[in-house]
């Protein structure tokens, strides 16, 4: 095929182009022609098609995501907001922390190991790009039914991929989720979070400023992997295309990434870059157009200087390739020698591929022939924006009328059977089978990891300053009421870091939904975003960034609306954190918060195939008072342990607490069935030394949180009213589920 240059495009304006195959709609193609005043060259078409895909352009979500900016709280803690590779927040003592979650759902369905591995690699590079040293990762995962054959194919591969890549990088995996639901069969969710730390002065941005500065590509060579992966993998449902169009997946090399991290950090430390961008989805198309539009817009790139693994790659393919472990930097000419020297030291391939110009066009040449000549903003930021039609789906009113009808235990035998069933159900069972494949303690700064409520890492070894992060989504509630579901997930994530005594500071999100072309799904999405934005405003927490994953559906069946919310908090001294459980007898156990009849969307209802009912309403004012109480309980040394109540209610919380250090408890409950199974939000179990009773009561009164004594610690059983469950029996039920399912 001959080279399609700008000159050819002008000379031959009516050549037919495969825009539809590249995922562009006729009106989008017409818009490109209008922008350029001619037909695009094939390279330009490739760039626009990937950058205007749903995955890169957020064309269906943009109008809604605006709320995160419009409703944002003004906070000095936010150093870099939405729009950069990741948001940056001030955590004190001169440190800044950056964190973000992204999805790698579709690639992980096709090739579980590599899909999950490159998901970790991609988010780590996003964090690195901000100038930070990545210090920990987390992975919320969702799968089809635990006993489905495809889950047995997908889950072990994804878990191994997450572990394989993260472990090789030497990054601790400090938490996440593993959730099963039939709607994720065929659409597993692999969300990857990374957190990094830096000094305030080290923040780097994606901009190409200063005419004459050099465009430098460094890291792995470019190959034919994942070509068109962004537009094709992430923007269409699987059924709509044959296998022929399915491109090769990317294969990651974590050892190259590790070297790239160290090389980049050394380059940053010597202040050798003006701007920097990692190459992720849409590869060079994305990096060059985003860097150029971050500056004045002018950039010249000589594409033949890009080092390739496969010499037969066409310029279009080089622009679209999603080869992993690559970075693009803007470097002043006076600093390039030192830049190259550092790359040579780390044995990192590096090439100057172009320069910043004082024009406003991104011009890309191939052996001297001009093949791309575009205003970069039109590629990177001025993509199509859709205000897609939406409508409340019919099921919303139907499920609201349904009455939950599940067995409520009352006798000793019923209580025992119920607690054991909940302990063993895949969604609540012990997840060690998964997390034992991850390195949780490498680097020696992990304070908390699974099965704690949140992950916590120390960021300063002298002052013991640390950060805690939790990710949560309750898709069952989001299904019943997407607005409340998002607010409840936010409250839960915030509570999960507060139980350890950390103060919530900032929010990230990964919004996983079905097809935006379905009016019902679009409504779920809009409601979730509205709920999250309102919730963040009310709680005074800034949204620092996020990611949207649409088209998670097989045929007409969409996944449950799954907004995964990540909350990051600060703790001034990790040594004073409140642990999730107790290790001695003689402590008093209290329930903070009131229990109401909330079985809708509960795990117990799910286990009885009941999806209906009315989701609880989030009371964020009360949640904030509870958070204040939890932080005060740590700083005033009132608590010995604190553990959140969420899926599985009090039954699951007690199970996890008594098994953690093999110390039993004797519990006395009124209305025992509902007390164990209800999932009323905003509740925490705390353990205190009886000497702290007055202090705890005082805090509860101050914060107006209902306080109920439920029992005492000690013994080798979990005793609930007349039911006695030995810890041996409970542990067996809790731990054997995953081993049985996945060997």
């Amino acid at each position, binding site marked *: 095929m001959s080279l399609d240059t700008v000159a050819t495009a002008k000379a031959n304006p009516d050549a037919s182009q495969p825009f539809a195959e590249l995922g562009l709609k006729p009106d989008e193609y017409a818009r490109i022609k209008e922008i350029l005043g001619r037909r695009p060259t094939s390279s330009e078409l490739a760039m626009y098609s990937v950058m205007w895909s749903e995955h890169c352009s957020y064309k269906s979500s943009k109008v809604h995501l605006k709320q995160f900016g419009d409703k944002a709280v003004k906070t000095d803690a936010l150093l870099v907001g939405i729009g950069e590779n990741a948001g940056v927040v001030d955590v004190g003592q001169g440190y800044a922390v950056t964190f973000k979650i992204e999805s790698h759902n579709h690639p992980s369905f*096709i*090739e579980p190991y*590599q899909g999950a591995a490159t998901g970790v690699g991609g988010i780590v590079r996003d964090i690195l790009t901000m100038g930070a040293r990545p210090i920990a990762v987390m992975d919320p995962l969702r799968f089809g039914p635990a006993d489905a054959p495809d889950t047995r194919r997908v889950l072990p591969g994804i878990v191994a991929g997450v572990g394989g890549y993260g472990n090789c990088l030497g990054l601790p995996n400090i938490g996440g989720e593993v959730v099963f639901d039939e709607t994720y069969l065929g659409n597993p969710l692999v969300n990857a979070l990374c957190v990094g730390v830096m000094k305030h002065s080290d923040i780097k941005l994606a901009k190409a400023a200063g005419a004459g500065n050099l465009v430098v590509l460094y890291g*792995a060579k470019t*190959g*034919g*992997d994942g*070509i068109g992966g962004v537009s094709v993998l992430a923007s269409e449902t699987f059924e709509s295309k044959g296998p022929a169009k399915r491109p*090769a*997946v*990317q*294969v*990651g*090399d974590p*050892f*190259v990434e590790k070297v790239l991290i160290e090389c980049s950090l050394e380059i940053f430390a010597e202040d050798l870059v003006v701007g920097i961008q990692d190459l992720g989805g849409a590869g060079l198309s994305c990096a060059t157009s985003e860097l150029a539009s971050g500056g004045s817009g002018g950039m010249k790139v000589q594409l033949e200087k890009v080092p390739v*693994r*496969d010499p037969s790659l066409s310029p279009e393919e080089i622009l679209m390739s999603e*080869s*992993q472990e690559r970075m693009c930097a803007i470097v002043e000419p006076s600093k390039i020698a030192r830049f190259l020297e550092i790359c040579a030291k780390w044995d990192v391939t590096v090439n100057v591929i172009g320069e910043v110009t004082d024009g406003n066009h991104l011009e890309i040449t191939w052996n001297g022939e001009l093949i791309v000549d575009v205003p970069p903003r039109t590629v990177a930021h001025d993509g199509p924006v859709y205000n897609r039609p939406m409508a409340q789906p019919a099921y919303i009113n139907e499920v609201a009328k349904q009455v939950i009808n599940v067995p409520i235990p009352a006798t000793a035998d019923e209580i025992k059977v119920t607690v054991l069933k909940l302990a063993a159900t895949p969604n609540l069972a012990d997840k060690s089978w998964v997390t034992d494949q991850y390195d949780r303690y490498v680097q020696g700064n992990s304070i908390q990891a699974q099965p704690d409520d949140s992950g916590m890492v120390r960021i300063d070894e002298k002052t013991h300053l640390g950060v805690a992060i939790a990710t949560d989504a309750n898709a069952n509630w989001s299904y019943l009421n997407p607005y409340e579901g998002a607010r409840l997930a936010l409250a839960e994530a915030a509570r999960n870091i507060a139980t350890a005594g950390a103060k919530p500071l900032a929010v990230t999100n990964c919004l996983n939904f079905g097809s935006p072309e379905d009016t019902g799904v679009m409504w779920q999405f809009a409601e979730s975003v509205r709920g999250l934005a309102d919730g963040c405003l009310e709680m005074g927490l800034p949204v620092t960034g996020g990611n949207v994953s649409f088209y998670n559906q097989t045929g007409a069946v969409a996944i449950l609306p799954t907004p995964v919310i990540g909350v990051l908090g600060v703790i001034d001294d990790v040594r004073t954190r409140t642990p999730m459980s107790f290790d001695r007898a003689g402590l008093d156990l209290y329930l903070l918060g009131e229990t109401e009849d909330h079985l809708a969307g509960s795990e117990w209802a799910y286990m009885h195939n009941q999806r209906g009912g009315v989701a609880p309403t989030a009371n964020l004012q009360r949640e904030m008072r509870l958070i204040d109480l939890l932080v005060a309980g740590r700083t005033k040394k009132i608590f010995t342990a604190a553990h959140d109540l969420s899926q599985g209610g009090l039954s699951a919380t007690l199970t996890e607490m008594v098994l953690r250090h093999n110390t039993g408890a004797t519990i006395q409950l009124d209305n025992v069935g509902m007390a164990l199974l209800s999932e009323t939000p905003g509740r925490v179990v705390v353990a205190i030394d009886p000497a702290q009773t007055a202090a705890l009561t005082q805090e509860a009164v101050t914060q107006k949180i209902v306080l109920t004594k439920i029992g005492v610690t000690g013994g080798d059983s979990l005793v609930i009213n007349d039911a006695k469950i030995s810890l041996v029996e409970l542990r067996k039920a809790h731990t054997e589920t995953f081993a049985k399912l996945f060997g």
Partner: protein
Amino acid sequence: MAKIVVDVMLKPEILDPQGKAVAAALPRLGFTFAKDVRQGKRFEIEVDGEPTAAQLAEVEVAAEKLLSNPVIENFTVRVEK
């Protein structure tokens, strides 16, 4: 007795970190002949007597389902005497 050999290689456009590591190690040990190295795996399957066409077809199916990952790998099936 004949052997059915299945060779599995990563598809040419797929990154091969192991092959790359070998390619980087060779010159360090003084072997300068290699321009590139790609690493794969080989299965030797023993059968009674001469493999039949039906057996080979079955091996093809097994190679697709178990021995290779068709998303990222190609394979070839042949008979070795």
